[in-house]
């Protein structure tokens, strides 16, 4: 018997459940290490060398270096942990969230000012807008 996961058909959304957490453990713990200034400096000086200290998969390391947050999330990253990379880069939470939507920073900000992304057409995968 497998667990019921009714959230699998929500478009553009990855729920950070136990399975994702298991896959992303080292990726997220790497992110957590960036809360220390010394570690941030070492990471910035040589990203590849710093990442190689962690038992992460090659795909996870490449996704981090590309700052591809959607890919990081697909590989088990959680946004609150990934935010530490953004903080290291001097990015705001809005810049990070926006980077995952395919919109420019300005387009995303304007969408939020106008009331945000509508839920209509965004509840189920394949739903007609």
């Amino acid at each position, binding site marked *: 018997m497998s667990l019921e996961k*009714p*959230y699998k058909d*929500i*478009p*553009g*959304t*990855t*729920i*950070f*459940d*136990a399975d994702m*957490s298991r896959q*992303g*453990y080292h990726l*997220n*713990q790497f*992110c*957590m290490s*960036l*809360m220390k200034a010394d570690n941030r400096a070492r990471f910035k000086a040589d990203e590849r060398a710093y990442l190689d200290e962690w038992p992460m998969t090659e795909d996870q390391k490449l996704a981090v270096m590309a700052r591809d*947050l*959607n890919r990081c*999330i697909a590989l088990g990253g*959680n*946004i*609150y*942990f990934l*935010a*530490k990379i*953004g*903080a*290291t880069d001097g990015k*705001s*939470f*809005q810049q*990070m*969230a*926006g980077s*995952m*939507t*395919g919109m420019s920073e300005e387009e*995303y900000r304007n*969408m*939020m*000012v106008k*009331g*945000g*992304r*509508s*839920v209509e057409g*965004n*509840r*189920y995968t394949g739903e007609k807008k």
Partner: protein
Amino acid sequence: MARISASVYTSHIPAVGAALDLGKTAEPYWQPVFQGYEFSKQWLKEQKPDVIFLVYNDHANAFSLDIIPTFAIGTAPEFAVADEGWGPRPVPKVIGHPKLAGHIAQSVIQDDFDLTIVNKMDVDHGLTVPMSLMCGQPQAWPCPVIPFAVNVVQYPAPSGRRCFMLGKAIRKAIETYDEPLNVEIWGTGGMSHQLQGPRAGLINKEWDTAFLDRLIADPEGLSTMPHIDYVREAGSEGIELVMWLIARGAMSDVNGGKPPTVRHRFYHVPASNTAVGHLILENN
């Protein structure tokens, strides 16, 4: 005996804290957000609570993936302000109330809720942003705070029903404490928002409005709403709203008393990626 005089509900958006810390509250983007809390700041000054029991979630600051407690009560004499990666917020440290917190832990665990007891913990924006919104920028916070952290980072968060029943157990614990303390309980987080993936930026005003209506008038019914409804309708991070049900479960009307008075209600979109919701309910 101690008593719960009121409950406060508010979003805890980090950008709101940053706007306050950087002196941006009068900017057109932020002004409507802070305007919504002007009444609340005055109200809190007049209420003079002795202790605030503050329900919030940690955002990968005090807790990494090494330990993920579903419910964690802070029993320390004080709590430092976390450095979340941008440096610690320039706000006062949080003074706890170890004696009441210990009493609540003992009572609530005996009532079948298995709390994690935390004697050392930094507190992040989940706790400090509500304090800033309700208190402004004082040199010291006006009273001790008991931090109560709920896991909403790794799915599943506790169910709404579980949170509501826990609120009742917390009320019972507070009412059996021997000192005559005026205690407020705050539930924080929400409202609709999604911070990840191509659906980031989701806001659902209609759903949020209905949530506020039901939280006031039908909290028992609201508590049975399944997680999937929160996630689908209010975004993957909208699930934080289950924390509001802990505060609501501690109010008089759902424990045999009179309905509360709605002292303040506020809603605004956006603050960064999120809908801001705020409510003050007073017990009668």
